[in-house]
């Protein structure tokens, strides 16, 4: 089974990000190719989530350039990322706890909706047809993630692993070309991790979605990603296919400490 990895779609050049005097990221460059699974790893505080937030437009780096499909990106806001078909999940689940799974995933379709607030409130004219269409897409996501049995359950009542899956569902509902996953497997048991891995691979395989993920579980990262970038104290210390990264001395040092 071989998949086609395409051209570079996201290119980050010499990114530096500071919060006051704290240097979160220092002179980092790497790129993401179409259809690949790209992992960002590193010890706690290495700057992984900051990196994701830079890609997503939440943080604006003081230095460096970002190229999206070959065009340099100006300062942008998170909602613009959504319009450019970049979707994400969060390290701490950020769902609407009181809403049902269905409604939560439906919110992922908001950027695709054309009718306005009033039309939706009255469920009138094009709003009705539009909703039916979006609902169909959402149902496809529900089917894909095998969560039919909790369709109408409020998210707050679900176990953690399922909530994570719902969050992935909401991101998928936006039909992203690039998916940013911030620790999708944190706090899961082995079985839930296996499920999540399978879904990530399936998303990548079936929809051709490019995936950038942050993950602590080395086994998972090395198994599913095509290329890995390693950060430590805001600096890039490794970049390449899993086998190369695994054997890099600097990476081993950062992870296991200098003594080993």
């Amino acid at each position: 089974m071989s998949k086609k990895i395409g051209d570079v779609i996201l290119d980050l050049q010499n990114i530096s990000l500071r919060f006051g005097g704290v240097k979160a990221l220092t002179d980092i460059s790497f790129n993401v190719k179409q259809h690949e699974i790209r992992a960002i790893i590193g010890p706690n505080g290495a700057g992984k989530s900051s990196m994701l937030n830079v890609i997503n437009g939440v943080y604006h780096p003081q230095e460096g350039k970002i190229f999206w499909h070959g065009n340099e990106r100006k300062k942008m806001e998170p909602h613009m990322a959504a319009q450019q078909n970049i979707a994400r999940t969060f390290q701490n689940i950020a769902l609407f706890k009181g809403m049902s799974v269905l409604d939560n995933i439906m919110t992922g379709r908001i950027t695709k909706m054309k009718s306005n607030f009033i039309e939706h409130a009255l469920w009138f004219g094009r709003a009705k047809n539009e909703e039916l269409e979006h609902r169909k897409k959402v149902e496809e996501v529900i089917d894909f993630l095998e969560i039919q049995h909790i369709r109408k359950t409020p998210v707050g009542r679900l176990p953690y692993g399922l909530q994570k899956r719902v969050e992935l569902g909401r991101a998928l509902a936006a039909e992203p070309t690039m998916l940013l996953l911030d620790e999708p497997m944190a706090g899961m048991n082995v079985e839930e991790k296996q499920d999540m891995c399978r879904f990530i691979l399936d998303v990548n395989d079936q929809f051709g979605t490019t995936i950038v993920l942050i993950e602590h579980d080395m086994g998972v990262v090395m198994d599913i990603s095509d290329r890995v970038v390693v950060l430590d104290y805001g600096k890039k210390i490794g970049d390449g296919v899993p086998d190369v990264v695994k054997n890099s001395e600097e990476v081993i040092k950062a992870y296991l400490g200098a003594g080993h």
Partner: protein
Amino acid sequence: MPDQANFGSVDGLHTFPRLLFNHAKTRANAPAMREKHLGIWQTWSWADVGERVRALACGLSALGFKRGDNLAIIGDNRPHLYMMMTAAQCLGGVPVPLYQDAVASEMLFVLQDAGIRFVVVEDQEQVDKMLEVREQLPGLEHVIYDDPRGMRHYTQTFLHDIHELMEMGRIHDRNHPDFLNQEVEQGHFDDVSVMLYTSGTTGKPKGVCQTHGAFIAAAQGGVEVDHMAADGDILCYLPMAWVGDHLFSYAQALVAGFTINCPESGDTVMTDLREIGPTYYFAPPRVFESLLTSVMIRMEDAGAIKRKLFHYFMDVAKRCGAEILDGKPVSMGDRLNYALGNLIVYGPLRNVLGLSRVRVAYTAGAAIGPELFRFYRSMGINLKQFYGQTETCAYVCLQPDGAIKFDSVGQPAPGVEIKIADNGEVLVKGPMLLKEYYKRPEDTAESINADGYFMTGDAGFLDEDGHLKIIDRAKDVGKLSNGAMFAPNYIENKLKFFQHIKEVVCFGHQRDMVCAFVNIDVGAVGNWAERRGISYSGYADLAGKPEVLELIRECVEQINAGLIHDTMVADSQIHRFLVLHKELDPDDDELTRTRKVRRNFVAEKYKVLIDALYSGKANQFIETEVKFEDGRRGKVSADLKIIDAKTFPIVKKAA
């Protein structure tokens, strides 16, 4: 009402394909099947189903499926899989449904035994199982799958999408328009229509060959007794390989012409049940039990007023509900009280359970606790029992309306003759008997005696009204060392009615006392423990808690106290018991796929525990190997406490 099968005439409706095409012609637009897909119920009319079956049958034929071939069917209840059954029958082939949750190695035996060349499976999971055992199945030629999801990278040429098969069939049908009609014409009521494998409580599974005639007769009898109509709905969610599902969801649906509804997935059955609101519902006792358990758990979490209301009206229902349903005389006050209860408790409860529209609900497969049975009937649900086995199309005894006895399985169904052998074994004769065991003439000869009676292997007796009462499996009924009868099932079923107890295995044959293994119901006991602030880390830990052991001891003693009134079984009081550290599981071969205890296997596997029970030890260490769902193996160990239960002096000894 259904058309009567006319076995005499050539063009009569005496095979399932003929029944189907007749529905497709005469009731073209009536709904035949529904399936929930992407959150919406999709409906196929009888005409749609007829067209698809035609396409599938022609497609199968184009692939080389011939008269006399067996077609394995593996998957959850899906419309296409049911259609495949009829498609195979059109060509004079025999569908062989398999239990879909079995692992590949377990399926291998049946696939080899039935000489399978063609397999129809539901999805990728089952395709993978077929690929796993393909090496050992040189005869396997084609695998057809229903759900294309995840199948994009499978390039093997013997794998076919069911939609491609249909397309192939439609082309074939266009080129040979008379072909299929001729094939269907050749079908005879005495042809084998389906092969169902026995679950194999003892030894290897055996393929039971049933004819069109047998299943149609059984279906017609049931339809007659229960006045089933064509506007009914049934939810089919039980394994297709099980005789009950084949009778209800396939044979009766085709005979009576009602609609079958396939749930979205195994996890959504409860929701789908509420949405469909079937008129005709079938579930094994364990499903009714877990429904009741979940209702009770939720009631205990409800507010004080609701709880009081619930218990008050439950008492009313217990007093008079079943009598009202049977049309027996009940006082005016109780009637009014019951009507009020119906409005505010029973009605809403039936609705929550998805049983508002139910005309008849059935249970079988194992004995049902009388209290449980009474509970559902008193709520106004016409729950009945029937009795039968794979070899008799699950059709021997039915409980007719108005003549329900809680402890009997009913009267012989239309066309069935029953006789009790000298050793107490139930013998039956009728049109629904098996034709043979596949390729096992000696087993066939052994199971049917010289007078043409099938030997069921169950011990029972007919009471004064001609109702059959089943005591136990004939071979399980033993004797205690003092000569008293020991019917383990009888006692186990009594204990299993407690919501905290899931499974029990009793021992006592040729021993001086009865001892038992108990499995707790982790849902109910877990909830119970939570509300008492008892913390636990997992199943084994919970099962070993002294409070839990005390709880189970109370249950056992209650049963002991009840047993003394029944002279037949008074000696079978449970003296000592233990609570097992793991749940008995079909994956560990301790239960059959239909969740019956494999008594001998359990006795052998846990021999040290039995020895400890009878040697008077206070505790025993045990380590057991377990198989996880993903096929890995692991070990669980525990030091089990053995509890002495209070026994009661027998009130009156049999003369």
